[in-house]
């Protein structure tokens, strides 16, 4: 089954980054048909942002590319149904039959037609007759008409609404329309208080639902496919800048206007089917102020708790039975167990904690183990089991991508959330040795012989025990899959024994 995600604007990219982290950790939604995690889930994200050189977009694309590379190595031939990187993340182009589509193989929606132009050129202002020019002057300010769209719609949803209406004519839309299957679902991620997301979301939903009248192969499903959306309400703060069109004071006003519009259009009870489930998420405790940069580099906002929680919404949507969708729009909100400025695993409600705590702890331990112990293990224990793991493994593309590309981004993500406001402090990030104190809120239980101490050697020893069962069961080419699979099993056992409170 596929989930097509349209991540619109900077917030969309950032939520997608958190989603990639959760998928890397092995967080999976429950298939409502079987009551078990989806065995074969494929996420197809498309980042819709005209500001493609923006730092937030770039960081997310790099992360997704690294994820895809790791996934392809791990699951070549045999697909592991659970564990690290077990959810497939694909580009639209990679799903198209060879030679069809003509799209670049990217997670980005190609907006070169838009980004090269100023808004007045895009609407061909000079070719309009006098009365239409007057209408445009009424609808858009001079500054908006002169906005160069390669830096996005910079807080102007009225520009975005016009530009993104071209989506229905794009290669990406045609590919999506031909790929959408009967069991597939669609999800939108956007913010409501900016420009690109606020404008793009309703327009694109309407484009999809209206495509039932097109010639696309999946036009029938376009009308009926379950469609969910995460709408981010204001949650971050931004430095005041007179030269920037992005202004925090406008956030609430824009939110109110957009919510009002949504209630009359895409979530209206009496309107034709548009959005089946909508997730509203925001935070009154706003973040540390971000640098206000609408220019070339664009925003690079630190990761935030709201984005992490937001990343759970597409997974929750996938777990919602189809029978509950398709009538009135379901609306969801999220609340912390207690309103605290520092968020740890115990601050989360038990259901969320059960979904993410253990997988994130496993990913964290994996990262620490690869950094601090793997080299020392080579030539001993599990590394001598077949397929053998020698020093040459440390220079493979897989290992370099995982340990030098993906996992450093994971640490940046954690550090940014930790440094933000609210502080997200799941792990003691300074602690790279005493693993028994690695969780900020849950102390480790004493071990049988080891006392309270939990060390890399305990993981190494457990890996040795688990790896024995798989000795010779994987070919040499599947060494990365064996390593991550055995690590997942080993740390699962350790977590059950030493951190039993993590799922309470």
């Amino acid at each position: 089954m596929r989930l097509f995600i349209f991540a619109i604007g900077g917030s969309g990219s950032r939520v997608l980054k958190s989603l990639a982290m959760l998928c890397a950790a092995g967080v999976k939604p429950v298939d409502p048909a079987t009551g078990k995690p989806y065995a074969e889930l494929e996420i197809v994200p498309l980042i819709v942002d005209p500001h493609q050189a923006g730092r937030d977009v770039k960081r997310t694309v790099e992360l997704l590319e690294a994820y895809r590379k790791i996934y392809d190595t791990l699951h070549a031939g045999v697909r592991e149904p659970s564990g690290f990187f077990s959810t497939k993340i694909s580009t639209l182009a990679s799903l198209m039959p060879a030679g069809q589509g003509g799209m670049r193989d990217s997670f980005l929606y190609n907006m070169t037609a838009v980004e090269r132009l100023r808004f007045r050129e895009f609407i061909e202002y000079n070719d309009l007759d006098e009365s239409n020019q007057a209408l445009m002057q009424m609808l858009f300010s001079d500054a908006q008409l002169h906005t160069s769209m390669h830096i996005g719609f910079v807080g102007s949803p009225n520009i975005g609404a016009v530009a993104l209406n071209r989506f229905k004519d794009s290669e990406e839309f045609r590919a999506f329309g031909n790929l959408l299957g009967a069991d597939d679902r669609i999800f939108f991620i956007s913010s409501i208080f900016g420009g690109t997301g606020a404008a793009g979301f309703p327009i694109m939903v309407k484009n999809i639902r209206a495509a039932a009248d097109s010639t696309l192969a999946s036009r029938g499903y376009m009308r009926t496919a379950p469609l969910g959306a995460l709408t981010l309400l204001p949650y971050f703060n931004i430095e005041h800048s007179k030269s920037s069109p992005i202004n925090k004071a406008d956030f609430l006003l824009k939110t109110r206007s957009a919510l009002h519009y949504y209630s009359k259009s895409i979530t209206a009870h009496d309107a034709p089917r548009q959005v089946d489930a909508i997730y509203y998420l925001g935070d009154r405790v706003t973040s540390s102020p971000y640098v206000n940069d609408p220019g070339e580099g664009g925003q690079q906002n630190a990761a935030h708790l709201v984005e992490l929680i937001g990343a759970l919404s597409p997974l929750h949507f996938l777990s919602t039975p189809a029978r509950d969708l398709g009538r009135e729009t379901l609306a969801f909100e999220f609340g912390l167990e207690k309103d605290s400025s520092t968020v740890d695993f115990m601050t989360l409600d038990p259901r969320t904690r059960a979904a993410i705590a253990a997988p994130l702890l496993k990913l964290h331990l994996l990262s620490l183990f690869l950094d601090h112990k793997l080299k020392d293990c080579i030539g001993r224990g599990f590394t001598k089991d077949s397929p053998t793991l020698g020093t040459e493994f440390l220079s493979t593309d897989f290992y370099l991508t995982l340990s030098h590309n993906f996992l450093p981004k994971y640490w940046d993500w954690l550090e940014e959330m930790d440094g933000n406001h609210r502080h997200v402090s799941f792990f003691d990030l300074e602690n790279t040795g005493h693993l028994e104190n690695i969780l900020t809120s849950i102390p480790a239980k004493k071990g049988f012989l080891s006392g309270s101490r939990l060390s890399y050697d305990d993981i190494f020893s457990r890996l040795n025990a688990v790896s024995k069962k798989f000795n010779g069961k994987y070919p040499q080419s599947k060494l990365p899959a064996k390593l991550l699979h055995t690590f997942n099993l080993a740390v699962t056992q350790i977590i059950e024994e030493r951190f039993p409170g993590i799922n309470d």
Partner: protein
Amino acid sequence: MGAALLLTLLFVVLGGQIYPALYLGPVDMDGTQDLFREDLRSQGWTLHLSMLIAALPWLMAGLFYYFINSVHFDRWWNWLIVMGISTLLTTWCALKMLSSRMEDFQTGLSDFYAPCTEALAGWIALFAFFVFTIASFGMRWWSSNCRHTPFPQ
């Protein structure tokens, strides 16, 4: 495991033939070596020696692979240390046992046979080393942390 046990059993069973046939240094003129060989055989000391030389290295190997079984002690030199201890311990115990049996048989006999016993000690150490190695080969498969020590599986 089966092959290792079989080899050890053969060593125990054939002990009666092995020890008397061992080289114990240049042949002495007073016939002490012949007397020593004869007593080894006739007093049943060979069986006791063989059983001890078989049991202790197996026990020490078990200690290394299943009781210690630690990632802190899984390198080839760790195995070598245990092997060394096993060899010395087995030799010491075997000589102690032999000396005790001799004294039980006849007071002062251990002093009389001292040159032969010293020569035998080298052989006992060699046997203990081989038995420890065979035992290691035989039992390491199921050790979680040391199954590749000192030889990869």
